[in-house]
């Protein structure tokens, strides 16, 4: 730590001083003029609550939200990977109509704000799908059962299942456009000679894609896909707008009921940061290891 500070020269100290003064001022404003009383000691209870009658710990509002965010991110990324792969292959299709359709989808999503896209997907698509499949009633049925622990582990509170599914579908459709672009870039990075060699030993178009192009493309797209996964976790916060009970939505609820504006939002920011930063370090390590091979 001392060696770290020895590297500092006078401009570094000036910058550091200015920053500290700035944050100090903000701190002072909150303390003084807003007359805000910090209640950090209440936050742990909203993460892991103590059930006084049953005498057990239970996941309280923030941890529930975190759980939902993780579930949604995992399911949505699996779905986005499937849609995205189809989209990426469609973008490289020799058929003009298929290529144009995929391109249209991509350009629409790229040039409309995510919030607007999410509302449109929610009202036009996922809501219709949920009504059509009658998921609402099915989920309520499971929620009423006694031994629904497995369901609850995978999907959280079953009464909220339709909204979770809506969130997953909406997020997956949105992210699939970007996954599709990554897949397309991966496919097109495979030299033409590979396809010609595959064709010259008599492979069909499908075999060529399946045995020669995709296995090679997969290796190239893993790092950008990992980054996209991290983006997806962050983007999932938008789902709070369509009342999906994930971390941001739960934080809004907490803020509304307890008025702990700063504590709640800082805690939530910390959750997102730890997950996303942790994952990005983890992926970086994997990448390094596979490079060494």
């Amino acid at each position, binding site marked *: 730590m001392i060696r770290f500070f020895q590297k500092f020269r006078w401009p570094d100290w000036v910058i550091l001083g200015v920053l500290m003064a700035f944050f100090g001022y903000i701190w002072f404003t909150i303390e003084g003029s807003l007359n805000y009383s910090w209640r950090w000691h209440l936050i742990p209870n909203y993460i892991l609550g103590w059930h006084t009658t049953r005498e057990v710990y239970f996941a309280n509002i923030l941890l529930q939200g975190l759980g939902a965010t993780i579930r949604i991110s995992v399911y949505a990324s699996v779905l986005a990977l499937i849609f995205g792969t189809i989209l990426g292959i469609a973008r490289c299709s020799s058929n003009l109509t298929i290529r144009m359709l995929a391109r249209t989808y991509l350009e629409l999503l790229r040039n409309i704000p995510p919030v607007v896209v999410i509302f449109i997907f929610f009202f036009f698509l996922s809501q219709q799908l949920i009504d059509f499949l009658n998921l609402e009633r099915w989920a309520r049925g499971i929620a009423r059962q006694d031994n629904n622990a497995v369901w609850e582990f995978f999907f959280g509170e079953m009464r909220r299942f339709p909204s979770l599914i809506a969130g997953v579908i909406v997020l997956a459709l949105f992210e699939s456009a970007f996954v599709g672009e990554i897949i397309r870039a991966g496919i097109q990075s495979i030299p033409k000679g590979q396809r010609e060699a595959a064709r*010259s*030993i*008599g492979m069909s178009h499908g075999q060529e894609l399946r045995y020669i192009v995709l296995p*090679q493309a997969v290796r190239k797209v893993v790092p950008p896909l990992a980054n996209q996964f991290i983006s997806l976790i962050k983007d999932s916060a938008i789902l709070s707008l369509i009342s999906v009970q994930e971390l941001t939505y739960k934080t809004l609820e907490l803020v509304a009921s307890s008025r702990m504006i700063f504590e709640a939002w800082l805690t939530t920011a910390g959750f997102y940061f730890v997950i996303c930063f942790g994952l990005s370090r983890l992926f970086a390590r994997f990448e390094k290891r596979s490079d060494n091979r």
Partner: protein
Amino acid sequence: MSDAKPIIEATHLDKFYGDFHALKDIDLTVHQGEKMVICGPSGSGKSTLIRCFNGLEWHNSGTLVIDGIEVHEQSKQMRGLRQEVGMVFQQFNLFPHLTVLENLMIGPMKVRRLTRGQAEETARKYLDRVHIPEQADKYPAALSGGQQQRVAIARSLCMETRIMLFDEPTSALDPEMINEVLDVMVELAHSGMTMVVVTHEMGFARKVADTMVFMEQGEIVEVSSPDRFFTSPSSERCRLFLNQILEY
């Protein structure tokens, strides 16, 4: 050679890339068992021509009959035909994500539907034929250029093809590796395979060619036996070209 059955017959073949006339009125017949060497300056259309022979490029007009079947862009038979026509590329084009053995097995297994055991047997047989059985479990990147090209030849052979096309197979190789590839090709020629080879290796041509073809600017300028081709070519352009490449 004229008593053998024709296996590739091109008549009045024309090919355009946009406005560029890549192949001009090509008439060429390859007979079963024939070894044909095509040479000519770069851009003369020789690669384009043999790429037409296995459907990597399509001619715009004229007819191309391979093994009794007329092929064109819409023809469904091309895929089946490709299994009979092997191709060796200048840049080897081995599959980098597969080992040498897997490179040889994937065609027979996925296209010819052989079992893994049968495919491996075939693969090892042809790996022996190209003299690198010990490299079976390596990845292509670990092999020298010459070894990679021999694997590529074996990959085509594993499909039990009846015609082999070579598109400048030694042009991307370091000089000391050219001979090991040419040796394999000479052995292949002696086994009776029908071969169409685009190359400037005139030593190889002298050794195995039945027919020499000289192309320039998309046209076939000369078709003759190697004896006549190397001693008294009938066209002036061909003689100039030979002087240039044989001078050193």
